[in-house]
């Protein structure tokens, strides 16, 4: 027997069992009542009935015979002890054998004055009889006779049966009986005692596990559902925003259009620069007494019939800097009128252009054959390059 398990076969003999808080107690002998036919006698607390068959289907079948089981009610004041029934051990062991034929299992407990035998008879893997027999105590000189007559009687009733004897009975050492010791008692679950026939207590933990599963499922789905509905609500709120609705709903292309408009309005406007430059050039030339503007055009018309250039003049402030690139288009076209002078047209042009360049800060280029004499005045057509 396991060292921590206390075997209790009768409460008269084992008052100690009542102290046994936290212990594991195996109930055998007189402390347990089991019967296929009889009701639980007074003094015993009814327990869930045991099936006479070991299969799962039998467990749910109404036709399966059940064994009424009771426990001595004195077992119930024993604090937190956990209990197992030796009877369950015999029953389980017997059903596990699953063999054809008949088998008689002797179990029970040996008290100081009596030996109580629990006899289970298995036929083809099912329990057909559960009997309780009272014999004298083991040390009594009549014990052997009573036992042998009992065995003989059973031999008559169950001819050819296999006879098996189990703990906590001590080995009778009879040839015809196989002693299997504690084999049936191994692995018995020890549990707190519960009153009543209901098996609810047995199902409590599995039921709790199943319920936990249901809870987990429900809360996972519920949590997910909450997230989902919250997301949906947030979307509805965002879309049904009265402000958004007033804009005619979500329209990405409209947003793109607005952005294009914003960029359009931020584009630099050349016309402002043109007007300023025109003003500053005209102002610069106005300070030259002899020169007058006939025409000024910004930007210069891009029609360039030929690429020949008569002369290029830059303002003094830009002397020595990079020349105007040959392929650069002029910014300004100027037609200037000056009083005619005896100089050659080109010399005259150079003088006037240098003065204009210095007054306006732009580089000038005389257009090919860009001079003309008329009514005592000389007209120069000049291209201007504005420096940044």
């Amino acid at each position, binding site marked *: 027997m396991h060292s921590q398990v206390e075997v209790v076969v009768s409460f008269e003999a084992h008052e100690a069992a009542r102290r046994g808080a936290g212990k594991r107690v195996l109930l055998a002998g007189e402390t347990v009542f089991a019967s296929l036919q009889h009701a639980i006698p007074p003094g015993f607390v009814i327990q869930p009935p045991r099936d006479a068959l070991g299969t799962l289907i039998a467990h749910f079948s109404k036709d399966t015979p059940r064994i009424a089981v009771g426990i001595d009610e004195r077992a119930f004041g024993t604090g937190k002890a956990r209990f197992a029934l030796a009877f369950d051990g015999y029953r389980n062991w017997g*059903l596990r054998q699953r063999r054809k034929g008949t088998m008689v299992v002797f179990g029970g407990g040996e008290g100081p004055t009596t030996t109580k035998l629990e006899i289970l008879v298995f036929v083809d893997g099912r329990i057909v009889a559960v009997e309780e027999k009272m014999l004298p105590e083991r040390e009594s000189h009549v014990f052997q006779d009573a036992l042998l007559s009992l065995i003989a009687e059973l031999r008559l009733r169950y001819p050819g049966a296999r006879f098996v004897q189990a703990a906590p009975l001590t080995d009778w050492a009879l040839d015809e009986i196989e002693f299997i010791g504690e084999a049936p008692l191994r692995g018995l679950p020890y549990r707190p005692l519960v009153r009543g026939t209901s098996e609810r207590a047995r199902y409590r933990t599995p039921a709790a596990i199943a319920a936990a599963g249901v809870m987990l499922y429900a809360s996972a*789905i519920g949590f997910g559902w909450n997230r989902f509905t919250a997301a949906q609500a947030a979307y509805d709120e965002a879309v049904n925003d009265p402000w958004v609705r007033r804009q005619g709903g979500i329209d990405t292309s409209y947003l793109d259009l607005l952005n294009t408009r914003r960029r359009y309005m931020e584009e630099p406007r050349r016309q402002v620069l043109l*007007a300023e430059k025109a003003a500053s050039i005209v102002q610069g030339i106005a300070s030259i007494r002899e020169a007058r503007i006939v025409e000024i055009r910004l930007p210069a018309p891009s029609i360039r019939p030929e690429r020949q250039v008569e002369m290029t003049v830059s303002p003094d402030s830009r002397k020595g800097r990079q020349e105007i690139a040959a392929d650069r288009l002029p910014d300004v076209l100027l037609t200037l009128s000056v009083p005619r002078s005896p100089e050659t047209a080109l010399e005259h042009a150079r003088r006037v252009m240098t003065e204009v360049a210095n007054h306006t800060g732009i580089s000038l280029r005389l257009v090919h054959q860009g001079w003309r004499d008329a009514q005592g005045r000389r007209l120069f057509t000049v291209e201007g390059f504005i420096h940044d």
Partner: protein
Amino acid sequence: MTSATSRLWWLIALAFAAILATGGIKGYRILSNKAGEQETVTESVIRWKQNYLALAESIKRWDASYRREESIPDMLSLIAVVNFGAYGLASDPDTIMIQKIDQVRRGNAPIGLSSVCLASAGAPGTSALELNAPSYAALFEGVQRLARRADISIGSIAIRVEKGTPIGSLGDFCVLLGRR
């Protein structure tokens, strides 16, 4: 109840719980994925609104800059919109004509702006609007201010003197009008 059936019940309960747990987790994943997708869409709506709000200044500026096309029924009101007089410039309304009407485009898409281009009939060159002012100073002052107007686009500026008065000739002079 035998310990075998008891163990079976345990197994059934555990299997049941395991199935429910995996099912629950799977269901949660599906739902939260859906929620995530929804949140992305919601975010884009919110971002849209934020972008829109960020553009509020620009929308206001647009509306303030451009007169609506439908508010200008005829030529006279168009010239009134430009209001040359306010810039010290004079033009002969009788010779002004609409040269072309275009859509302002950016990236090949119209941006909701009509460009109504004006020219003086008989002006030298092809498409210029002639303006005059008593002096150079007044002419340039007026043209510079006109050029700064957002709803007026000027392609080129030419100034010449005719009989002592400076004449400004604005090429590709267009009035920009907002449209739906």
